[in-house]
């Protein structure tokens, strides 16, 4: 699943560790999501979208991987 997490994180001026601390996961998990090696649970996806005050669809795009 494609995502814009690294862009949102960079715009907010946060490191992976900062974001990990704020949403309660490890830095490696944030890294794995950004590299699209791990798809987060709904709970974590909501947590991330809440944190960046955006919609889940703005952060995650399940369609684009197959389209590309």
């Amino acid at each position, binding site marked *: 699943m494609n995502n814009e997490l690294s862009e949102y994180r960079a715009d907010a001026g946060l490191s992976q560790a900062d974001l990990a*601390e704020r949403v309660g996961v*490890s830095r490696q998990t944030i890294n794995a999501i950004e590299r699209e090696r791990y798809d987060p649970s709904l709970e974590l996806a909501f947590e991330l979208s809440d944190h960046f005050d955006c919609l889940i669809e703005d952060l995650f795009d399940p369609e684009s991987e197959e389209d590309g």
Partner: protein
Amino acid sequence: MIRIDTASMNRLETRRFYHRLMGACIGGGIVAYLTGVLSGYVILGTVIYWAGFLGMVGIWKGTSIELYDEREQQLDREAAGLTLWVFSFVLVLGGPALFALETVGSYDMPPELWGAFYAYCVLYLIFGVIYTVHRKRS
């Protein structure tokens, strides 16, 4: 009683701290066991090793801190599932073959192999029971 002040730590630091504490418990236990074996205090070494292991499990299960996040838990489940899957081939293919060889008299299974075979059967039996209980609950 030792009180640990984790209030000044953030979540990641607290998690790291508990991981280190768990590592120290089991690591200390292993060192004590090896030292006991080498110095002739095997029983004492074993008791300390058990205490270290129980300490590690006690910290893991006793703390309210989530020590492993969802990705780490998923990795754990996948590794456990894959291990069971790989070893199921040993049971599914090897079990009947050993029985067949013994029945035709071309191979006598040593008692150790029977023991390993029954241990495998018990492992998969336990897996089946736990899986069924979880399926009924979910």
